[in-house]
């Protein structure tokens, strides 16, 4: 059925295959205006797409995303102390709010965070006195008069430079970074610790959460994701492998090991299994744009939490409940450990998350309707309407239904992003990036 969002129906009807990234995409992130979309991949590269301004001359290509810049963010490193190679895979990218003509973003691999500045150059100086066009020094005897160099337009050049490198802050693997609303600090989280950094200072950070036990044999829980509150610069949340969320207030203590609030849903006794803990592990947590809610993703569900209610989520949506009877097989092939992300739309009325078989799911919080869509070249042509998909679990089977047993578990949609204001979504399917736009109802209510 149609996904209804606010007034009128929303048809997800346009696909633009924005790029075939050479390597497996590992993160996708829109900037704060949605004009830029950054992807990071397993090879340490960052590719930034820019939305073309709508043009009257080419009405069909309004608002498409084209490649804006590509650069190598991280290289594989060798840790000589531990005799280990550090992967160059980009785990997360976060944009800084734009404060001048330049754009800035943070990118991180397992160990090192980097601040990149992206600037445009569309003019160049011409008419130097001492150098010629190619930059070679002129023979001074030929210089008979002085001229003032002038700026001439040139083809747009996008320059990217590393401004800061935040290294040696983490013993364990970084899973999240989050920029504070104060625009001066950010945090980075690994399995056991969360550090607070000042964007201008690279040689030290403050440890604000430490859950490493005195004896590692007592380790039973790790940090899986963390994020700053969008408005309150003192608040942040982190999730754990046991399915709990901890909201912390940095004003309360320097070390936020004691949470302000603990959000945890009691285990459902009718659904208990040996895999209960694994499937409760939270793989992603996102504050709503309003700051009133949090969205979490665990293996089988997405949940909406109200910051004022710690006892249980206010909403739970089943992503692929048909997998509940397959948990043993999924444990065996390690799929049960897959980490899916989740996303809010701009008005916090629709949530989205990925699944298997290149399917992704959207849930309308108001109408309680949901839809399953597929990101693949076979099923999507430019300007075609995406057809809702259905997974059948036995019983009546419609013509285009997919049976659970024929799902391809190697095709995972782990990374998805939603434009901050419009109905535009970016879906990473292995090494393909899909961008879908809603053409009927472009404006958010």
């Amino acid at each position, binding site marked *: 059925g149609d996904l209804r969002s606010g007034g009128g129906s929303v048809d997800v009807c346009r696909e633009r295959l924005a790029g075939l990234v050479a390597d497996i995409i590992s993160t996708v992130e829109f900037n704060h205006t949605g004009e830029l979309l950054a992807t990071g991949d397993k090879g340490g590269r960052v590719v930034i797409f820019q939305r073309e301004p709508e043009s009257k001359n080419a009405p069909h290509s309004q608002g498409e995303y084209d490649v804006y810049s590509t650069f190598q963010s991280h290289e594989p490193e060798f840790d000589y*102390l*531990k*005799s*280990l*190679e550090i992967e160059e895979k980009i785990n997360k990218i976060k944009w800084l709010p734009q404060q001048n003509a330049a754009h800035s973003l943070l990118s991180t691999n397992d160990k090192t965070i980097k601040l990149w500045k992206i600037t445009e150059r569309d003019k160049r100086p011409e008419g130097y006195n001492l150098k010629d066009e190619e930059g070679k020094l002129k023979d001074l005897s030929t210089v008979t008069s002085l001229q003032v160099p002038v700026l001439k337009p040139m083809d747009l050049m996008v320059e990217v430079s590393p401004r800061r490198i935040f*290294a*040696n*802050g*983490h*013993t*364990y*693997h970084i899973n999240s970074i989050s920029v504070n609303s104060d625009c001066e600090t950010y945090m980075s989280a690994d*399995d*056991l610790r969360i*550090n607070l950094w000042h964007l201008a200072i*690279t*040689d*030290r*950070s*403050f*440890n604000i959460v*430490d859950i*490493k036990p005195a*004896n*590692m*044999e007592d*380790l*039973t*829980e*790790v940090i*899986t994701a963390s994020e700053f509150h969008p408005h309150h610069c003192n608040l942040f949340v982190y999730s754990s*492998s046991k399915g709990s969320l901890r909201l912390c207030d940095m004003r309360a203590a*320097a*070390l936020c*090991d004691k949470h302000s609030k603990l959000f945890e849903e009691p285990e459902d*006794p*009718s*659904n*208990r*299994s*040996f*895999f209960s*803990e*694994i499937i409760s*592990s939270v793989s992603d947590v996102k504050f709503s744009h309003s700051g009133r809610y949090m969205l979490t993703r665990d293996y089988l569900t997405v949940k909406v939490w109200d910051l004022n209610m710690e006892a249980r989520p206010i909403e739970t949506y089943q992503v692929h409940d048909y997998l*509940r*009877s*397959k*948990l*043993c*097989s999924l*444990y*065996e*092939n*390690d799929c049960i*450990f897959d980490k899916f992300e989740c996303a809010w739309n701009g008005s916090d009325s629709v949530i989205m998350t990925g699944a298997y078989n290149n399917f992704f799911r959207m849930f309308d919080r108001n109408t309680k309707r949901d839809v399953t869509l597929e990101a693949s070249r076979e099923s999507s042509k430019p300007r075609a309407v995406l057809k809702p998909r259905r997974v059948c679990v036995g019983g009546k089977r419609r013509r285009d239904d997919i049976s659970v*047993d*024929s799902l*391809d578990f*190697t095709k995972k949609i782990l990374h998805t992003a939603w434009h901050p204001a419009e109905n535009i979504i970016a879906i990473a399917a292995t090494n393909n990036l899909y961008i879908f736009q809603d053409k009927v109802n472009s404006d958010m209510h």
Partner: protein
Amino acid sequence: MLSKGLKRKREEEEEKEPLAVDAWWLDPGHAAVAEAPPAVASSSLFDLSVLKLHHSLQQSEPDLRHLVLVVNTLRRIQASMAPAAALPPVPSPPAAPSVADNLLASSDAALSASMASLLEDLSHIEGLSQAPQPLADEGPPGRSIGGAAPSLGALDLLGPATGCLLDDGLEGLFEDIDTSMYDNELWAPASEGLKPVPEDGPGKEEAPELDEAELDYLMDVLVGTQALERPPGPGR
């Protein structure tokens, strides 16, 4: 075995159904499950979990989340098998293959051992976290931490050396080092060992006392003659 699981085609999914059937207690639709908490796990689920644990530890840098989740799951399984686990170890290998033939087909020697050695391996893994850690840790919480090199956590140590540690135990790691010099109680915490002998003699029980012979020995060692004269220790 794990790669087998990842690469398997869809047809092979049917072959795996027996495993799902075997794990009937996991089926929420099953009447028995709706009423009672999970019953005893099959040993194949236990074996699978131990296999995953080994595999995880063999990574140069284990994925901590994966490791912790597998260990916790293994503990749950162990707990459910507790009545059986408390007994002397499981019958020898002949019984095991029949249960977990597919899973153990490509196992190495450690995995095809009896459950006793599996449980022992598990406690080795837990015991390893107390392995000596050359920590240059980040300092007290709440303070700013320097950009120093990251400390070595115990689980990091488990990585490269895990294979031999699990097989030989910690002792095997130090086999070729002559520790005989250090076996003497003189080399207890320095502050105690080198305290001057109190005037009131050996009346005290608490701190280790140095008598004259031990003091002589200590001097000889410091001078270096003892070290050269001592025969090779038990380690060789």
